[in-house]
């Protein structure tokens, strides 16, 4: 069935399930749209651009000259390591059914990408629209790569390279892959639509018990929904079909990650990426302790130009991250795009203005920090908020993150070297909670996606702001606890195995020379 046929069917609204049932007996494999495929490939590469060189330069510019290469090296090596882990077992752990543990983590059925080839497909957010599974794997892989790399900013300039490698392998395995599963694993729009269509067809058959045509249609719908043909044939009457359809609907609705099941909204990774990495960073910096000389010696960024280049590349790449999370190059992607522009600009301006008022001068570092804070905050909300809502979210994020990075950090005295907690975790929490508010259509939001009330179409569900905010808060709280405690255990474990910190002498000398045997600038 082509997507064009499907879109025509969407237009038939209420009658869609009957037509769907008759049109789909010989369910042909959907063909991915070339435009969607090309778009997702470009989006994937843009997310790669965020990590290298974006994040490497952004972080590298913020450290001292003697640790520039170590920062770049840690980011780059983490990226390569996670790519291999992702295709080996990470994708399977995140995006397959995990059996008894399915609420928390996927299984191992696609380990070594078993069963995946260039013809297999991954669902998007529109009924009947698919993208090649390889492209989806690559897209999600770039997310798995950048998230652990974000943590490095909090523990910069004082962690051994061997500890970084071991920690990253453990962290993605025990924290990131399960988190991605819990938030993003679901059966896709067609699984929900087909199961719901079967339920409605069965209801119609029950209502007109003598109509065999309706009963046949209900049975066909049930097969389409994924129930075996033999099992369907064995069903005696409409009531049995209805029961089977209800069971199937229940299966589809429960074959999702835990946070997805709660109804938590996270379009591009506020919980999975930013809160997750941010809290891990805070735990890491508390456990490692401060850099030698922190608070006594000056530790200014060694190159704010590189920092600016890195932040600019992050913004450019973030369009792949946010807009690509739409998974289709359709009209809605445009809304995600404009949100990613304006929320970021808003946060950059609000950070700049608050800094100007509080510290006397508007700094470039403040402006680009605001850019990152805005991008982080809009990440979960970019596919749910309206344009004006996004600006408000950005403005708030710039101010709150500024307070955390300049006042709260110094008040508590922890050495979150490059403000991973203050920007990614705090901005992520703001964005996640804000999503629950800004999704409301009365505030210009999109409403909550609903694939079941009119099967085969994407409807807008009603939003109860208070309820949605509670769900979002629950998801945030869970992520903070899960990632915080999990990261603590892993940091301790790595400390026991290889040790976390280099010797004092090596730290003073700089990790470029002592860990990597080279220096960033030879002139």
């Amino acid at each position, binding site marked *: 069935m082509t997507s064009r046929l499907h879109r025509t069917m969407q237009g038939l609204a209420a009658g869609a399930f009957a037509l769907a049932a008759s049109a789909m007996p010989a369910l042909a494999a959907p063909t991915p749209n070339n435009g969607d495929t090309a778009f997702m490939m470009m989006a994937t590469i843009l997310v790669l651009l965020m990590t290298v060189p974006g994040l490497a330069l952004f972080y590298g510019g913020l450290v001292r000259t003697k640790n520039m290469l170590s920062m770049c090296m840690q980011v780059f090596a983490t990226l390569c390591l996670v790519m291999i882990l992702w295709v080996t077992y990470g994708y399977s752990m995140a995006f397959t059914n995990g059996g008894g543990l399915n609420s928390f983590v996927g299984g191992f059925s696609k380990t070594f990408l078993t069963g995946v080839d260039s013809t297999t497909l991954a669902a998007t957010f529109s009924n009947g629209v698919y993208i090649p599974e390889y492209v989806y794997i690559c897209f999600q892989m770039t997310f798995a790569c950048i998230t652990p790399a974000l943590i490095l900013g909090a523990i910069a300039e004082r962690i051994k390279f061997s500890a970084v490698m071991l920690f990253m392998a453990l962290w993605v395995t025990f924290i990131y892959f399960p988190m991605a599963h819990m938030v993003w694993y679901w059966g896709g729009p067609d699984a929900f639509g087909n199961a719901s269509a079967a339920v409605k067809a069965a209801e119609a058959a029950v209502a007109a018990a003598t109509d065999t045509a309706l009963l046949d249609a209900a049975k066909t719908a049930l097969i389409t929904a994924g129930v075996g043909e033999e099992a369907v044939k064995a069903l005696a009457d409409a009531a049995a079909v209805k029961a089977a359809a209800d069971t199937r609907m229940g299966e589809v609705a429960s074959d999702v990650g835990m946070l997805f099941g709660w109804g938590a909204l996270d379009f591009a990774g506020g919980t999975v990426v930013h809160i997750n990495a941010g809290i891990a960073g805070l735990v890491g910096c508390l456990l490692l302790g401060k850099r030698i000389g922190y608070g006594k010696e000056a530790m*200014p960024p060694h190159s704010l130009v590189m920092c600016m280049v890195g932040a600019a590349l992050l913004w450019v790449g973030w369009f792949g991250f946010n807009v690509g999370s739409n998974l289709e190059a359709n009209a809605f992607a445009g809304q995600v795009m404009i949100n990613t522009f304006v929320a970021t600009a808003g946060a950059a301006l609000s950070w700049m203005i608050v800094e100007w008022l509080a*510290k006397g001068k508007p700094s470039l570092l403040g402006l680009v920090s605001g850019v990152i804070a805005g991008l982080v905050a809009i990440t979960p909300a970019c596919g749910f908020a309206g344009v004006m809502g996004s600006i408000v979210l950005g403005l708030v994020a710039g101010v709150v993150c500024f307070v955390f990075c300049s006042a709260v950090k110094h008040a508590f005295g922890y050495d979150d070297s490059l403000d991973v907690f203050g920007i990614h975790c705090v901005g992520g929490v703001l964005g996640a909670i804000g999503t629950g508010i800004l999704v409301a259509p009365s505030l210009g939001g999109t409403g909550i996606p609903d694939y079941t009330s009119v099967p085969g179409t994407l409807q807008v569900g009603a939003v109860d702001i208070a309820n949605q905010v509670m769900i979002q808060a629950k998801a945030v709280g869970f992520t903070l606890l899960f990632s915080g405690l999990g990261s603590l255990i892993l940091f301790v474990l790595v400390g026991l195995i290889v040790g976390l910190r280099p010797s004092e002498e090596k730290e003073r000398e700089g990790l470029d020379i002592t860990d990597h045997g080279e220096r960033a600038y030879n002139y």
Partner: protein
Amino acid sequence: MKLITAIIKPFKLEEVRAALTELGLQGMTVTEVKGYGRQKGHTEIYRGAEYAVSFLPKVKIEAVVPSTLAAKAVEAIAKAAKTGQIGDGKIFISPVEATVRIRTGETDDEAL
């Protein structure tokens, strides 16, 4: 022979060089240095972390001149490097025992 060591504001270097060349001086050595005098430092703020920067960038000029020229050279530097603001720098004069030009083996005033 006298060694003239002048610490000046970096942006005054070109004017000082021009003034000394006009006097007929054949060369000088320039180093980028940091230091402080009465000007003290300034404050830099990075994401709310304030650093007092005590050492400011300056340029150090070293030139060895025949004793007869020393007073004029000092006067020329002082005139060219002056802005009237705090932080203009200082000039030190010290005696030099001997000079050798490596290429020719010439010594003292001939080597300058």
